[in-house]
């Protein structure tokens, strides 16, 4: 036919098209230049450099609080690394993951405290950690086995159940052993060959080493037969089976590795806070680990660590009302800048928003002085700047609650609308959001943190569906 027989196959003229996504991802400009520069450096060198920089962190700050945040961040990063194997690489929806974290913590607690026996058990830390981690890996296998094919919904339910059972068990079943709701206290600090780790900085370095070692190990696995098997099974279990990959065994292994990593993090966590309490291993915490993995880009080792870092640091910032406010308004502004195009429309919306606020404040102030008597709850410069823009009644609770409901209904309406109507509705809704924030949300710190984290995730997923460091999914047509 049209191709001469002796010429090599000339397929792939569409390569340019196929690679256009990649080109778009890289783009140009300084950030792309940094990405390209990083790509030239090997993976291990990058890991070493970043680890060295992170290792400097405790030396640069004198605040124990900051290092403590660092420890929590590294714990979350380790957990995200383990979950990434299960969810990111193998595609198993494990909703009981945090229970393995708890299992590690309680396991270590029982082996390193006065809890069991007349004078307690006080194993050397390394021994206790090995016992607990191996037990967790076996428990992972055991839990995976009855889930036979370890498929989507079935596995999700079994693991969710397991997560609940774990919390129930340590809280109610044998309070003498696990301490019931009060947990286990008085856990020995980590000790390695007679050396006790007692400072926050010490735990930071232990965790840094653990994180780096796990990252290295996972990187090796990723490029090994096992890693390829995991990803093949996630992608197409049937095709994987046709390649003689033992699909169920491969899934079980991933599940078990995840359990072991989580348990390892749990042992260090228990030693660090010298206690293990049931509430540390509840579902909200599971969501945080998932948030880290997804935010960082499911399937990427560095992404899991980066995602966990962003989640952990963001949550910490949200503890302080004025920082939370900066984040809240910053997020709204960022969303507007990204989503509202062209620039003229964006300018019009912002100008209308400012004018709308002052107008509402003036009108309501003229009608009733008490309706504007309150002060924005956001402290700092944000609160000051909003003083005569957003209305805050003397008693904000009632109006705030009503406004919250209206805001949610308004958001639902906003999604349905199109064109000009949408833009017009956007202005009062944004104002309403500020109102709800200043009257209610900022005062309800714990709920607000969850809502904001969710919002950040949604915004992020819109801007970059593959996560911070994830690679775009390739679809075969």
């Amino acid at each position, binding site marked *: 036919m049209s191709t001469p027989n002796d010429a090599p196959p000339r397929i792939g003229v569409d390569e340019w098209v196929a*690679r256009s996504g990649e080109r778009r991802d890289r783009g140009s400009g300084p950030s792309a230049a940094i990405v390209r520069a990083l790509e030239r450096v090997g993976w291990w060198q990058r890991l070493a450099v970043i680890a060295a920089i992170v290792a400097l962190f405790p030396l640069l700050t004198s605040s124990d609080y900051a290092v403590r945040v660092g420890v929590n961040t590294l714990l979350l990063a380790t957990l995200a690394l383990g979950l990434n194997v299960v969810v990111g690489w193998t595609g198993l929806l494990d909703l009981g993951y945090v229970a393995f974290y708890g299992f590690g913590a309680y396991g270590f607690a029982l082996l390193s405290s006065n809890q069991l026996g007349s004078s307690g058990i006080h194993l050397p830390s390394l021994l206790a950690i090995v016992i607990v981690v191996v037990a967790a890996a076996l428990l992972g296998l055991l839990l995976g086995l009855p889930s036979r094919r370890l498929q989507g919904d079935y596995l999700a339910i079994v693991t969710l159940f397991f997560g609940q059972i774990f919390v129930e068990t340590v809280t109610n079943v044998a309070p003498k052993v696990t301490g019931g709701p009060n947990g286990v206290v008085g856990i020995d600090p980590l000790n390695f060959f007679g050396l006790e780790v007692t400072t926050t900085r010490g735990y930071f370095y232990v965790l840094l080493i653990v994180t780096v070692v796990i990252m290295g190990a996972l990187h090796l696995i990723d490029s090994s037969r096992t890693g390829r098997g995991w990803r093949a099974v996630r992608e197409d279990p049937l095709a994987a089976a046709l390649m003689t990959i033992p699909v169920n065994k491969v899934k079980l292994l991933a599940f078990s590795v995840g359990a072991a990593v989580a348990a390892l993090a749990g042992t260090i966590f228990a030693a660090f806070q010298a206690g293990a309490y049931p509430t540390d291993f509840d579902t909200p915490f599971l969501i945080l680990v998932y948030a880290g993995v997804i935010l960082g880009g499911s399937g990427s080792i560095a992404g899991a660590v980066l995602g966990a870092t962003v989640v952990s640091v963001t949550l910490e910032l949200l503890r302080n009302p004025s920082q939370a406010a900066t984040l809240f308004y910053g997020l709204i502004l960022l969303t507007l800048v990204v989503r509202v195009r062209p620039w003229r429309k964006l300018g019009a919306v912002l100008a209308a928003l400012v004018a709308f606020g002052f107008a509402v404040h003036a009108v309501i102030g003229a009608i009733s002085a008490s309706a504007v008597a309150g002060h924005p709850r956001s402290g700092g410069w944000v609160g000051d700047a909003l003083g005569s823009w957003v209305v805050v009644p003397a008693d904000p609770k009632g109006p705030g609650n009503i406004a919250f409901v209206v805001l949610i209904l308004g958001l639902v309406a906003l999604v349905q609308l199109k064109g000009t109507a949408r833009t017009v509705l956007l202005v009062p809704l944004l104002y309403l959001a500020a109102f709800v924030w200043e009257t209610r949300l900022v005062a309800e710190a714990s709920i607000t943190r969850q809502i904001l984290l969710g919002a950040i995730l949604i915004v992020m997923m819109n801007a970059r569906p593959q996560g911070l460091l994830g690679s775009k999914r390739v679809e075969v047509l």
Partner: protein
Amino acid sequence: MRNGDRAASDAILLRLEEITTHYGPIRILEQVSIEVGEGELVCLLGGNASGKSTTLKTILGLVRPTSGRVLLRGEDVTNRQVSYRVGRGMAIVPENRRVFAPLTVLENLELGAYLRHGEDLREEFERVYTLFPRLHERGDQLAGTLSGGEQQMLAMGRALMSRPRLLLMDEPSMGLSPALVEQNFEIIAQIHATGVGILVVEQNANMALSIADRGYVLQTGQVVLANRSSELLASDELKKAYLGR
């Protein structure tokens, strides 16, 4: 039913004995008997929904027949798992290729040799790269970003990595341009020339018969014709059975 003139001395790689397969209550295959000899290239022809893929699935063990036997080099594997059968020297190029899209070309090939862990695969890589130089150039490219023709090559290369004695192919020319289809058949002939037994499912009867030793024609789950390719091509039975319907 005639099986054509295959030299009786040839060992039989694959033998389906009066296979009947159901999906639920619906009978899809009825008394299908097929043989592939060592190093033979056999094509399985038939129109849409005539049961060609079901035949391959029965051979692989993805569906179990309600009666009949599947023999692999004389061994009854009717009740064996997929992995066992594939481990006995069978490999498949599945319908629609099913390459692992987010993995690189090299990783896809390595997965094809999953069972041959720890062995020296240089020879296999060389073989595959000689057949498909393109795969060599594209080692680090993600499989999902390959063109359709390249994905077909990858699926074939991946199957060859396990060094199969019997290669099953389900409509390897589906979705390819006419020029690529011709190339594809040339490559199948080349693979055949290296001594691999091949059972290729096709709708494109003339093209398939031009390279095959023998052919079977399926019609609504029954083998209605079985003969040497040259005779199938020469007779007008084929047209009646398959094209005319």
